[in-house]
């Protein structure tokens, strides 16, 4: 009997491992933009399989509104079954994304509602935090776009207070810094947000180079030469091959 239990345990573990392996293969295929392979891998009935299939359908090429709607229907099913487990939260986020960017005719008001619900129901979850950044973009540019820039910025500022996820904090401040620049507001306001984005230590690549340059340039314009020099030197150390390096070197390397 013990032997039978032992054997049963081993045998029951095999399908689980196969399932997990298939799911990892499925997600790896999704990451490589290989939707057809992902659909083959997500063949099971688990919530994760169904979620994976829905994501693969959503991203299948050639893109079609029918696929987007089908994926939406599947995400809605997952949320209706259980909106509070990991899959349910992921599916809720995807539904907001469908309304925001996936439909040929986006529905910004619906997207905002879905983001707000996610933030309200699961405030600390990374996806709710990510949703706050997306909601900021909607409020700044798509919703109530006739209202003055300052009013739109005021509508967005409270979103930042609840953020704890470093990537969300970084991107929230970058979105605001860009909006302030493009809307022609005082550069010092954008500077504050750029510094907060930098303080997350999550910037990377060309965007990081951009932020360092922007902090240096704006600090210079607003008279904070020490800050300007500090960030120019950081930029020169990290991005010596950048086309802007020579300009900043000439400006600052002569100074102590």
């Amino acid at each position, binding site marked *: 009997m013990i032997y039978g239990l032992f054997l049963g345990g081993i045998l029951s573990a095999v399908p689980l491992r196969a399932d997990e392996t298939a799911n*990892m293969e499925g*997600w*790896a295929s*999704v*990451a*490589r*933009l*290989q*939707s057809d392979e992902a659909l083959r891998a997500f063949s099971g009935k688990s919530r994760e399989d169904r979620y994976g299939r829905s*994501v693969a359908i*959503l*991203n299948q*090429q050639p893109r079609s509104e029918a696929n987007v709607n089908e994926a939406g229907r599947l995400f809605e099913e997952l949320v209706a079954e259980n909106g509070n487990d990991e899959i349910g939260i*992921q599916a809720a986020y*995807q539904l907001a994304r469908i309304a925001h*960017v*996936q439909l040929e005719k986006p529905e910004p008001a619906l997207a905002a509602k879905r983001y707000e619900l996610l933030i309200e129901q699961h405030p600390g979850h990374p*996806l709710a935090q*990510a949703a706050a*950044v*997306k909601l900021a*973009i*909607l409020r700044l*540019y*798509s919703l109530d*776009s006739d209202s003055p820039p300052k009013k739109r910025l005021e509508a967005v500022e409270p979103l930042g207070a609840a953020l704890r996820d*470093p*990537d969300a904090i*970084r*991107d929230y401040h*970058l*979105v605001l810094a*860009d*909006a302030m*620049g*493009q809307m*022609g507001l005082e*550069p010092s306001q*954008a500077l504050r947000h750029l510094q907060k984005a930098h303080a997350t230590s*999550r*910037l*990377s*690549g*060309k*965007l990081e180079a*951009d932020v360092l*340059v*922007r902090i240096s*340039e704006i600090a210079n*314009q607003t008279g904070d030469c020490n800050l300007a020099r500090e960030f120019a030197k950081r930029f020169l150390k990290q*991005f*010596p*091959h*950048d*086309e*802007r*390096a*020579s*300009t*900043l070197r000439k400006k600052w390397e002569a100074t102590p």
Partner: protein
Amino acid sequence: MGGNTMIGKLINRIGIVVLALIFGWAAWTVLSRDSTLARRNSEIVIRIGHWQLESGLRDAFDALAKRYSEMHPGVRIKQEAVPGRVYQTWMKTGLAGGQEPDLMVTGQARDEVLARHFTPLTHEIAEPNPYNKGTELEGVPWRDTFVDGLSNSLGLQTLQEYYSVPIAILTIRLYVNAALWEKLLGDRPLPENFDDLIAACSEIERKSRELGLDIAPIASSRFTAEMLFSPLFKSQTQKLALQINKLNNLTPPRSAVAAAFLPGLATLDDPAIHDGLQIVRDIAQFMKPGFLQLEREDAILAFAQQRAVMLPTGAWDFLSITSQCPFPVAIGRIPWPSSDHPRYGKNILGRPSEAGSGSAAAFCLSANSPHPEVALDFLRFMTSQPGNEIFAQTSKWLPAVEGARPSETTKDFMLDMEGATDGFAIAPIIYGNGEMARIYAQNIHRLVEPDGGVEPFLDSLRPAFAQAVHDDLQRQITDQIVAVRRLEGPIAAQRMIPDDDAKKLSALLQAQNAQEALSAWLESQNKSANP
């Protein structure tokens, strides 16, 4: 009877010996053939595909292949050089059939193509290149050994992965027939600034007429004209580019110039735009009538046949040109207006830095390669300091790797990392995309023809310009939304894959949010400019 038996035995023994010899010979033949086949079957062949048919390139790859095979017996590098006009078709067919080379140049491959068919090198480029051992690059991450820091690697801005590695850098210079220059201009130095260039062109025309020769100052074609028009126009918008930059990031509008013409930013009436058009017209007066209909090869032929003194083109043409020119060729920079030029000086910041530009022949590693480790190793070798030097010295192209020495004959093409930030042009007159490029190229003759001018050109551009800006912006917005959507899957996947490297998800989110915010802002601006 006894004698017959002895002869019989002897014959039998001889027969046995002959049979044994024949068998031995046959066995030896079969065994030796099998071992040759075995050797060839065990040989690893790495195929590399590219379209660089310019003089010297195939020789350069052959030299690299030879050196690598000497270091790695049992590995053979096979080069597949395919003409540019059929390369994309050849590439797509290869990818579809799983028959693509191990390493290949892909051009500007789309993200789906990169993600599906090629292996990202993000982890590998963070490690030192072992072939840099013994050089000053020993121990330096492979990525940081490149002159451009791999900032232009395919897939980097969107998928947050490095998919390609360049083997060369290319720049544009002014080729000068030194003998003809001396004949017509004496010991006058090569033009250092725009005024020098105009003066030299005028003098060449005058002297040519005086001597009864038909020699043009500049070898002209639409392509070579663009080599001069673009930098000269951009010289006039250097300061304007900074003024309209609301983000203070010192980056001029580049692939998305339409955004520069949003309300409140640049307009066709800006003095800098007028000056940019005028400087183009100034130099166009020294180009052969009808040059807009001529091809690059026509200009090269005119230069080689000594019917023109100067030829603006890139390092990629160096071997082709010098191999057919029976005269010494001097290389100079494209002349730039000086800051004290009475009209053009006020707009400039100075000659722009060439940092980060010009990477070429960027190879990707096929995800289907039967020998990915060996292919990657060869790629490392090609882009090590010693390997890249072999390439540069043989091809006369410029090395992409720090410290790799170019050929003595092409050192004047090396990147000049010092300089100001660049300006922007309205559009190119060749190889442009979008509506602004279409109407600009279509009407350029009104600017450059002898009886043309800035105002007639702008008059022809204005009616369609606002719509062209709107259409190009809409295209850019659409492209960015596609990029945003494309990242949704990888982001969802990264959240589900237990991964030691959380940086990947972080970088994907950063890229997506930046693109999404930019496209949302552009859309809001495009709508309000065109309600």
